[in-house]
Structures are given as structure tokens and as C-alpha cells.
């Protein structure tokens, strides 16, 4: 109940107990489930990018690189979650002003971004189901290798979400966001040797490839799938780089990303 004190409304009720899980699920509903339910055609779209590259690599290599290409497709799907997050958040923020309504509510940036990240995974499910089925059929690995792959995909996902969130907070226009999204996707998921071993890249260009965290992710995944044999030192360095890049980007996002505008 509210009452008046000195001309002001004073609310007597105790602060409402808020359901944090529902705060996360709200983003999932808005950004994935309602869209999928009301516009089912979007489900097809999520499969196209990773599968088209996979098919191309498999054809060009006469089937020899199918394992690497499936792993590459999974990495691209995970990385694509972040680039999609960038455009989706920008769309909700700049075109609908929905994010402004959320900022001025008890939802926190953590719950909002967690929900949006979850929505991107759900949105990618069609591709992940197809790629996961192909992986189960074509990639034969040990339980440790399987866990490594899961760890790699998860780290790539977190990295991309952090990149996507940071860019989304700076973007003031959906056209700008699409440009950022395509640029990031090309630099980190298309150009680096994600769908094939890095040994296929001529030596001087390999150093450039190592500027992308997805190159390290692909090496680790290919090693886990038995397509590449990494030395223990390289294995450790790859993990170290991958985790460090994620941690640094996370720190940058916390410091620079703007939930409340300045």
C-alpha cells in the first residue's frame, strides 16, 4: 500500500522478492521463443552459415576434412551466438527502446545478458542439433577429448558473448551493429583456420591466424578429435591463450560496456 507523507507517495510494502530465474527467462522468451513461435522461418536461418561452410570444405577436401569441418561448424555456431547477440541487443535497444525499459527496472545487466546469451543458444539449436548428430557419427574421441571439446565450445561461446555485449552497448544503430557483426564474424570465424587444420595455411600467414582466439579453439578441438597432434606445451599454451583472451575481454566488457549511458 502507498500513503502520502509531505506530499509524496511512500510505499509501505516490503521490497518485492524477485525471481532471478524469471528475469533471465524473460530475455529468452523475447529474443528466441516468441520469435521462433511467431515466425518459424527464422529456425532455418540459424543453420545456414555453419552448414554451408561445412558442405563447402567437405566437397573441396573430398570428404577428408569432414571431422575438422564439423568441429569448425560447432565453433562457428558458438561464435555466431555472440555476433547474433550484438545485433539482437542493438535491435532491442535502438529500434524498440526495450532495453531502456529494462535498464529502468529491477533487472540487472547480468540477468539481461545471461538471458540474451541463453536465447542465442536456443536460437542456434537447429544448427547445433544437426552438427551434434554429425559429430556423434563422424568424430570418434575419448571421454577426455569430448570434455575438452565441450570446454572449448563453451569458452568460444563466452568470448563471443562478451564481444557481442560490449559492441552492442556502443552501437547506436542497427546498420552499424550489422557492420560490426559481419566484421567480427569474418575476422574470427571465417578467415581463421577453423574448418581445417592450421597446417594448411602457408607459414607467413599462420602468425596472422594466431591473432584470432578461434584458431586456438580449433587447434584444441582438432587435437581432441584426433585430427591434429599437439605437443603438451602447445596444448597448454592454447588453453592459456583462449582463457586469457576471454578473461581480458570480460574485464574490458565490465569496465567499458555501458548498461547505464554516460
Amino acid at each position: 500500500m502507498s500513503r502520502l507523507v509531505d506530499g509524496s507517495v511512500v510505499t509501505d510494502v516490503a521490497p518485492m522478492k524477485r525471481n532471478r530465474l524469471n528475469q533471465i527467462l524473460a530475455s529468452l522468451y523475447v529474443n528466441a521463443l516468441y520469435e521462433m513461435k511467431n515466425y518459424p522461418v527464422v529456425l532455418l536461418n540459424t543453420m545456414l552459415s555453419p552448414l554451408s561452410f561445412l558442405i563447402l570444405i567437405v566437397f573441396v577436401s573430398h570428404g577428408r576434412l569432414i571431422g575438422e569441418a564439423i568441429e569448425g561448424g560447432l565453433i562457428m555456431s558458438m561464435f555466431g551466438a555472440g555476433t547474433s547477440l550484438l545485433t539482437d541487443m542493438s535491435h532491442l535497444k535502438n529500434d524498440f527502446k526495450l532495453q531502456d525499459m529494462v535498464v529502468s527496472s529491477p533487472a540487472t545487466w547480468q540477468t539481461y545478458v545471461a538471458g540474451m546469451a541463453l536465447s542465442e543458444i536456443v536460437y542456434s539449436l537447429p544448427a547445433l542439433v544437426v552438427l551434434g548428430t554429425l559429430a556423434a557419427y563422424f568424430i570418434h574421441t575419448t571421454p577426455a577429448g569430448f570434455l575438452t571439446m565441450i570446454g572449448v565450445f563453451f569458452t568460444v561461446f563466452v568470448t563471443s558473448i562478451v564481444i557481442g555485449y560490449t559492441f552492442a552497448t556502443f552501437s547506436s544503430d542497427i546498420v552499424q551493429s550489422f557492420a560490426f557483426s559481419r566484421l567480427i564474424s569474418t575476422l574470427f570465424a571465417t578467415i581463421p583456420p577453423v574448418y581445417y587444420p592450421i597446417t594448411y595455411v602457408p607459414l607467413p600467414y599462420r602468425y596472422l591466424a594466431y591473432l584470432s582466439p578461434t584458431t586456438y579453439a580449433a587447434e584444441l578441438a582438432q587435437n581432441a578429435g584426433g585430427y591434429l597432434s599437439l605437443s603438451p606445451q602447445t596444448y597448454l599454451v592454447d588453453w592459456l591463450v583462449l582463457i586469457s583472451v576471454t578473461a581480458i575481454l570480460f574485464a574490458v566488457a565490465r569496465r567499458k560496456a555501458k548498461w547505464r549511458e554516460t
Partner: protein
Amino acid sequence: MIECAQLTKRYGRRERRALDSVTFSVRSRGIFVLIGRNGSGKTTMVRILSTELEPTSGSASIDGVDVVTSPTDVRERIAIVPQEAKTVSWMTPMQTASSYLLWRGFSRAEAKARSLASLEKLGMGNSADSLNRTLSGGMKRKVLVATVLASEADVLFLDEPTTGLDPISRREFWSILRETAKERFVFLTTHYLEEAEALADDIGILDRGRLIRIGTLQSLRKSIDYDFSLRIPKDQAVSLPRLRNGELFDGSEDTHILTVEDEAYEISRALAKEGRRFTINPVSLEDIFFYLIVKEGEQTG
């Protein structure tokens, strides 16, 4: 109380101040309407108070809670429909309102129940499950207002919620807002002066980032020395008497006179005698606004 002290917002180092040392306090009861021309700083003010935007300097609080240093506490109590907010095209009104309530931490069952009740209250029960993109412009605005009304927030910021609405929809909106203001505080911005006049318990006038007046309509009326407003169309060629107690503003469409009661009757009688067309009314908010903006412009050059 909503209190602001020396509140200033500058976008970029060389940019003009969107808000320039705004200081005021207003009771958080009923409806407060902030009026001003485009670019006067209304939206910046709302965005700062609703914790979306940090001010460059100064302070602001809602019922004693600082919006700059304690935004989380403020957000427990507020909800906003931003200027230019749009309904998400792929969602329905029901999904729009209920997902917003989930963001506020309601259970699914309560979110649905409150959303349906709010949509029905605004006469949208039958459209609750239609896609937003199929709704008219007025209905879409209603969805957004129903969304925040469904919440538990007791301070509502509505930034130009009636822009683009037809006159009938706008009046429907007014009765919803009056009803809402019985239980909650509504902070409204508009550039429809008749809207402010019809709704406001308190009115603030912003011009070029500065708050030039604040108070009730009555107190604003008293802040200028005139009681009546006469408007004489340009096609009614008349020689006007020299004004003793009034002021004359030569507009492109008409000649506008603000004056005291006696002089207003005198001029009216003279114009009527000559058979000229004119209007005479008690000073309205539009007259006050016009007068204050012109005077403010003269003072600041």
C-alpha cells in the same frame, strides 16, 4: 519528492548543455508534466531520473533515494515508457507485458494475470493475443502503457506517450492517466499544452536545458501579470490601441495580445464595434508557455 540540484548534462565536451543547472523539487503525487519545445531537455531529464543516463554533474533523487548513486534502489520503484519506444513486432500485447513483468521478477502466473488485467483495463483484452505489428499506432502505444501499468512500480515515467495519437485516443489516454495517478505518481512529458493543462497537478517548463518555471497551473498563471489573451487574425486589418497594461506579439498568423481584464474588455468592445473577428480567452497554459519562452529568449539573447 522528486528533487534535483544543479542537475547538468552535457553530451560531448563542446556540445551545448542538454540540461543546465536544473534545480527544483516537486511532490511525487498525482501527475507532474514537464513541457518544453523539441530539444529543450525533457527526455534527458526523464532519462536521468529513470536511471538510464548519468548526469554530467549535480544530483537528483526520488523520495530521498539518489538516482545517481543508488540506481538499483530507485529501479525497484520505477517504470518507464521511453520516447520512441515501440512494441516488438514479433510479439503479442500479452507477451509484451508479461515478459516485462518477468524482467521485473514476477512469477509466470502473476505476470500473466497482471498483464491480462492491465490490457483489459485499457480495453485491449480482445487484442491481447494478436501480433503487435497488426495493431494500430494508438493500440501499440496503449500496449506499452499497459505494460508498465501492469507492474508494481509506483513512479511511472511516460515520455511523450501521446505523440501521434488521434484526439479521441489521446483523451482516452488522459482518463487512464488520471485513474493511474490516484495510486501512483506519473511523471509525464509532452509538447501538447492542452494535455498538460488537462492533466497536470504540477507543471515544469524547460527551455534550452533550463527550468524556467515550475508550479501548479494556478501559480503559473499568477507568474505572469496578465489575465486574458486576445488573438486577432492577420486578415482583420485593425488599428490597435496603444496598450497600457498589456503586451503585443506579432505572429505570422495572428496578432496576440496578453493583457489585464479591463484592457481586454476595452479592446474587445472596440473590435466588436468595428465588426472584427477575434477570440478572447482567459490566459491558458499555451499563452503562459509562449510568453515565458519569448521572455526567456529576450533575456538570454
